[in-house]
C-alpha cells in the first residue's frame, strides 16, 4: 500500500541522495530491482556494486547515480523506518514508486504534486486528509485541496 504525506513530517529525509551515499549497501545495487531501475531511469548499466557504466558520464561510481534512482533504492531496501522525500524524484520515477508499494507498505513524503498519470493503476492513502484515493484523478483532486507542501 502506498501512503502519501504532503509537507514537513517527523522522521523524514528531505534529501535522500545524500542519505543514500552514507548508508547504501553493495547488495542493494546488484539486486535485480536496482539494476532495472538504474537502466530505466539513468540509462546506465550496473557493472558491479561499485561501478556503473553511464552513456553520458562514462564509468561512474554508485554515488554518481541520479537522485531519483538513489531515492527509489532507499524506498525499496532501507529498513530504518525513515520516510523519504519523493520530491527528489522526477515523474519518471512514479511508476517505480507504485511498483515498490505493491510489494511492501511504503510511506512517501511529497513537497509537490507528483504526476502519477503514467501508472496503469493507482491507489494511495493520503495521510493529511485520512482518505484513500482509488485513481489518479481522485489523487489529484485530493492533493489540490491540501495546503501543506
Amino acid at each position, binding site marked *: 500500500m502506498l501512503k502519501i504525506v504532503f509537507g514537513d513530517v517527523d522522521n523524514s529525509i*528531505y*534529501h535522500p*541522495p*545524500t542519505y543514500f551515499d552514507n548508508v547504501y549497501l553493495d547488495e542493494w545495487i546488484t539486486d535485480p530491482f536496482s539494476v532495472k531501475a538504474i537502466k530505466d*531511469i*539513468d*540509462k546506465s548499466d550496473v557493472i558491479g556494486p561499485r561501478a556503473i557504466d553511464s552513456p*553520458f*558520464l*562514462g564509468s561512474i561510481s554508485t554515488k554518481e547515480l*541520479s*537522485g*531519483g*534512482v538513489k531515492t527509489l533504492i532507499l524506498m525499496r531496501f532501507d529498513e530504518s523506518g525513515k520516510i523519504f522525500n519523493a*520530491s*527528489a*524524484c*522526477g*515523474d*519518471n*520515477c512514479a511508476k517505480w514508486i507504485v511498483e515498490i508499494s505493491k510489494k511492501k507498505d511504503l510511506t512517501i513524503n511529497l*513537497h*509537490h*504534486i507528483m*504526476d502519477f*498519470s503514467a501508472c496503469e493503476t493507482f491507489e494511495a492513502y493520503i495521510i493529511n486528509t485520512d482518505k484513500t484515493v482509488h485513481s*489518479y*484523478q481522485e489523487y*489529484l*483532486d485530493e*492533493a*489540490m*485541496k491540501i*495546503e501543506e*507542501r
Partner: protein
Amino acid sequence: MKGKYHIIVQNARVKFEFDIKRNITIIRGDSATGKTTLMNLVETHERLGDESGITISCDKKCKTLNNSNWESVIEQSNECIIFIDEETRAIKTVEFAEKIRESNNYYVIITRESLPNLPYSVEEVYGIHTAGKYADVRQTYNSFYRLYTMDNKVTEAAEVIIVEDSNSGFEFFNAVKGEDIQCISAGGKTRIRSIVNNYNGQKVLIIADGAAFGSEMSELYLYMMSNPKISLYLPESFEWIILASGLIDGKRIAGIIERPEDHM
C-alpha cells in the same frame, strides 16, 4: 542586475549551454537529466577554477550556495549568477526570499517544489534536454527547454473567470466580462489552486500575472491536463496589458513590452 546572460558549462564529457533572463530561474523535470551534474560542475569550478578541467563561459561569475552558507554567500555576492541545488532547504523560507529580493544577483534553483515565497515567471521554469553528441563525439550536449508553453487560443467562452488580483486587475475584468460570466477574485495566487477545485466541470478561465505565477504553474498545469475545461491567461502583468493596449504612446513602450526582463 538586468538583462540576459549566455552560459556555457562544460568538461570533456558534457556541455550545458543556456540563457538566463531574469533574477530567478527554476530547473526541474525528470530524474537523470543532468541537473545535479550541472550543479557539481559549477561547484567544482568555483573551488578549483580552470585547474578543475571544467570551463565556464559567462559574463558574470557563477557561484553556488548551500544550507550552511547561503546567507553569507548572498551578502558577499554582487551581480553573480548563483546556482542552488535541491538539498538547500533554506529556499523555502521567507528569510531566503527577503534576502534575494535585497540582492543584485541572478539565481538558478534546482527544485520541484513550488516556492510561493519567490516571484518567478512561468516562462523561466525549465527542464534539461539532452540533444545528443556535439562537436566532439565524446561530449553530450545539454540545453534548457521551457516546461510551460501555452500558445493555444481559447475558442469557447468561459463560464467562470478567476482573477488572481483583488484590486485593479479584478475590477477591470469584472467590468468587461459578459453578463452570463461569473468573475471572482482569488485574493492571491496561492488561493487559486483550492478555488478552481470548486468549479469542477465548468469552463474556467484563470487570469494571473505570468511574471510571478511560476510557483503555481506546476500543480495547475497537472490539473489542467486532467481537466481540459480550464484555461489560463497569463500576461506579464496587468500593467503589461495596459502598456500593450496602445492607449499609452511612446517609443520606449514597445521595447518594454517585448523584453520586460531588461526593465525590471
